[in-house]
């Protein structure tokens, strides 16, 4: 089959084994017992009726001591709560049975006696006086961050124009079509789990921490992943399945129903953002940002989101004086989790909408105003980070030109929006990859599973091909579980091609050094592909790979070399930090998007007519999968922009845990999308690549919102731009 995707045939024939497809002889099926309230004191969990059913194994907090002798696990994150439940559907017990039907019946038979406590479902409930007043200390604050530069008060006092606005953003779910699923098998002290995960090694670490086990006793074997988008980046079901396997002595399968996927998934939660900007002489002189970010039941001191997200609210813009303060606010929802570029699309929506509004209020052209403040290479960010090669100014110029062409032939009730976003790539801990050269070709051995983006199978393969000079058909990428694979930190953070790819590039260099030592001679080394076996050439010297292998290599599959990628992190100017931890970014990348929409003024319905994305990528490694990432990211962003909103009731109940009520984009709603890569602004990845998985989603909601404003004048300050919200802004509702 001809395809840009190495996995096309297997997937098109339905042969790919995902987490949900796992089974083992003698396996039991598991089900979780959910808390019936979002906040409550747990009085008792009575398993007796479940245990009375034939073949049923049931466990709760009371069983942890006997299942995990000598271990306390993570006291802050007990697998099962023993005193207090903090979000609705939080698992309070788990059961396993020979059939799924029986397991679910047994879960229903567990009697949970819980005394309901007051529920906090919304950040503004916690801080009613916000943004004027925020309590110094509150049990609901998981993190507080504050950074300052310059005399902000004076700048606001003397500015020509001051604009103050409040924005609200929605909770969005990853909606991977494959629900979470795993199969655990605990035997003789080996805690083994096969699971659909973006991070086999990260999940191993999580499981070891949560269960209080030595990390070497846990083996995580990743399956193919039916979509991740951040939602499969840490352990979720694995601890329950492992404990049930330990308790029953049998393999245990646990997979979520889609409703549970919505209810238990860790994802982006709502925010409220206060934006204040002061402008004089056509320039931003100061900005105040106040962020209340709902982090659900994320733990105090462990929450990373506020310090990570808040700097996105200054945008990629020069801002001489600023004060930004953020609170990660605890509510009775599941903990905050990653969702493709976590919270960055929401920040871009706020910043771009706000600056567009500021420019209009100051009588300036909104795009020219933003372009005038955009970072360029050699600048220093407001938090004191140097801006390296940065393709965003070029991307924005091109997006503006596209928008101008579209305006020329615009129809009635149409509008065009241009928006930018930035991201940091190449992050994460270090990683390692091995390459193995045999007479037949080059094999990359590594520990990541393909989650769909193509970054492992196509991206890593393309890096190895380019580094070795072999055609991609001669390169294979193989996977091993955490017991034997070289460590890598996971497929997340747009890091795979850039960071793991770097390790692969290094491994090929090490291989070539080794080949050079074996071959002798001088000058560059080349691998030669004939019709048959590979050979190696250096100047006038040439040998086949078979001739260069020693006996054990011939028996063991080839000449092995390994390479490492060392995790990179940037630095910030700590003098600006007044409270909390701010995260440093590396390898800035950017995207500029143009959207054209048509708005039905009587209903507020927004239709996206055409879309153009200009993406700073450093260097394109695998063109087909790279373009596919941008298309997919833009469409996912259209969901954030227009329809996606998980809604909670005041008592902490998720009101729309299904695909009929939580609407993601469908085929008929997708506009034509043109994808253009801006190359040459190199990052630290192989051949100058920067990460690509997340950036394409970032500017989408902003571009759509600005297009809606351009079309109708409606200034919508909440996500998503549902028909209802647009209609209200147009005062037809």
């Amino acid at each position, binding site marked *: 089959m*001809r395809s840009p995707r190495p996995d096309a045939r297997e997937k098109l*024939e339905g042969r790919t084994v995902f987490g949900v497809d796992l089974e083992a002889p003698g396996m039991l099926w598991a089900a979780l017992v959910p808390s019936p309230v979002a906040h409550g004191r747990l009085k008792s969990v009575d398993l007796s009726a479940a245990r009375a059913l034939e073949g049923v194994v049931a466990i709760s907090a009371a069983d942890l001591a006997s299942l995990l002798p000598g271990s306390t696990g993570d006291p802050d994150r007990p697998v099962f709560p023993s005193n207090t439940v903090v979000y609705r559907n939080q698992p309070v017990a788990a059961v396993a049975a020979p059939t799924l039907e029986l397991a679910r019946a047994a879960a229903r038979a567990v009697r949970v006696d819980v005394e309901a406590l007051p529920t906090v479902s919304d950040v503004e409930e916690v801080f009613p006086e916000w943004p004027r007043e925020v309590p110094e200390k509150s049990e609901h604050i998981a993190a507080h961050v504050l950074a300052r530069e310059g005399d902000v008060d004076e700048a606001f006092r003397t500015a020509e124009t001051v604009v103050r606005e409040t924005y609200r953003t929605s909770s969005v779910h990853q909606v991977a079509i494959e629900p979470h699923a795993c199969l655990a098998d605990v035997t003789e002290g080996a805690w083994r789990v096969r699971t659909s995960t973006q991070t086999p090694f990260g999940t191993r670490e999580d499981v070891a921490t949560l269960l209080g086990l030595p990390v070497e006793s846990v083996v995580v074997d990743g399956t193919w992943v039916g979509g991740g988008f951040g939602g499969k980046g840490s352990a979720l079901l694995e601890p329950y399945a492992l404990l049930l396997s330990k308790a029953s002595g049998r393999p245990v399968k646990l997979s979520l129903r889609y409703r549970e996927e919505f209810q238990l998934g860790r994802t982006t939660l709502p925010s409220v953002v206060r934006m204040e900007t002061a402008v004089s002489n056509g320039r931003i002189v100061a900005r105040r940002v106040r962020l209340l970010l709902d982090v659900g039941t994320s733990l105090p001191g462990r929450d990373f989101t506020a310090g990570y997200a808040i700097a996105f609210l200054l945008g990629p813009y020069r801002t001489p004086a600023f004060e930004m303060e953020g609170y990660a606010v605890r509510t009775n929802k599941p903990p905050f989790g990653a969702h493709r570029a976590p919270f960055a699309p929401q920040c871009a929506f706020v910043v771009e909408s706000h600056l567009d509004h500021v420019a209009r209020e100051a009588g300036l052209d909104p795009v020219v105003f933003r372009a005038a403040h955009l970072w360029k290479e050699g600048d220093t960010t407001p938090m004191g980070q140097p801006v390296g090669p940065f393709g965003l100014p070029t991307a924005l110029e091109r997006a503006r030109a596209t928008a101008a062409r579209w305006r020329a032939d615009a129809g009635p009730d149409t509008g065009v929006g241009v928006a930018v976003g930035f991201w940091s790539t190449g992050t994460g801990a270090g990683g390692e990859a091995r390459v193995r050269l045999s007479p037949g070709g080059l094999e990359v051995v590594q520990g990541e599973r393909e989650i769909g983006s193509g970054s492992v199978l196509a991206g890593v393969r393309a890096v190895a091909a380019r580094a070795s000079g072999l055609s991609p058909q001669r390169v294979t990428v193989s996977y091993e579980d955490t017991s034997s694979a070289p460590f890598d930190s996971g497929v997340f953070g747009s890091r795979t091609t850039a960071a793991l790819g770097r390790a692969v590039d290094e491994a090929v260099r090490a291989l070539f050094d080794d080949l050079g030592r074996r071959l002798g001679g001088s000058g560059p080394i080349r691998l030669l592909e004939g019709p048959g076996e590979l050979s190696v050439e250096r100047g006038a010297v040439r040998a086949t790979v078979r001739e260069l292998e020693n006996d054990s290599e011939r028996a063991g599959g080839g000449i092995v070399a390994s390479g490492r990628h060392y995790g990179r992190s940037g630095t910030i100017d700590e003098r600006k930090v007044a409270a909390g931890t701010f995260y440093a970014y590396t390898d800035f990348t950017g995207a500029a998007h143009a959207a054209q929409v048509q708005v039905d003024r009587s209903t507020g319905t927004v239709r996206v007519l055409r879309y153009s994305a200009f993406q700073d990528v450093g260097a394109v490694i695998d063109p087909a999968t790279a373009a596919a990432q941008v298309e997919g990211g833009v*469409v996912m962003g259209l969901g954030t922009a227009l329809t996606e909103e998980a809604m909670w009731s005041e008592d902490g109940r998720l009101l729309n845990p299904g695909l009929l009520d939580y609407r993601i984009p*469908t085929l008929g709603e997708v506009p034509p999308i043109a994808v253009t890569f801006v190359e040459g602004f190199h990052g630290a990845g192989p051949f100058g690549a920067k990460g690509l998985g997340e950036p394409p989603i970032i500017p989408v909601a902003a571009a759509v919102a600005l297009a809606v404003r351009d079309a109708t004048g409606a200034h919508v300050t909440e996500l998503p731009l549902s028909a209802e919200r647009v209609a209200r802004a147009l005062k037809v509702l």
Partner: protein
Amino acid sequence: MTRPLPLTVNGRPHSLEDVPDSERLLDTVRWRLGLKGTKEGCRSGDCGACTVLVDGASTLSCLTLTHEVEGSSLTTIEGMSEDPVGRDVQEAFGRAGALQCGYCTPGFVLALVGLLRERGRSASVDELLSDLGGNLCRCTGYLAIVRAVSLLQKEGP
């Protein structure tokens, strides 16, 4: 115990024993027949991942009771390689790169094959696409799937 339930699966006759009245065709296909290329997504008819063909017609197996299809001919993704239209659809999806994680892919292939059966091999690209709206994909943004359908119909028989 209920009487055996006859069902032809990918061209082969089967006789299923003890199928409860409430068993969904999705569970029959995946766990009774072991044909796990058919995927479980929402289990409520919203995503299309579980699409199979029943007597050639595209059917959501999650909303179908197995007893409803007694005596029918069932085709799943595992049977597509022996189906000339199925092979064409697979080729077009492969060439267009119309898949990423691959989880929704069998459902798309079956839905499209069903549509081509229903509307004829020369159906227009637009009418095919308008009827594929019930299949959700979160990875591709659908554009590569649109290109696959265009490729298929441009180079059709």
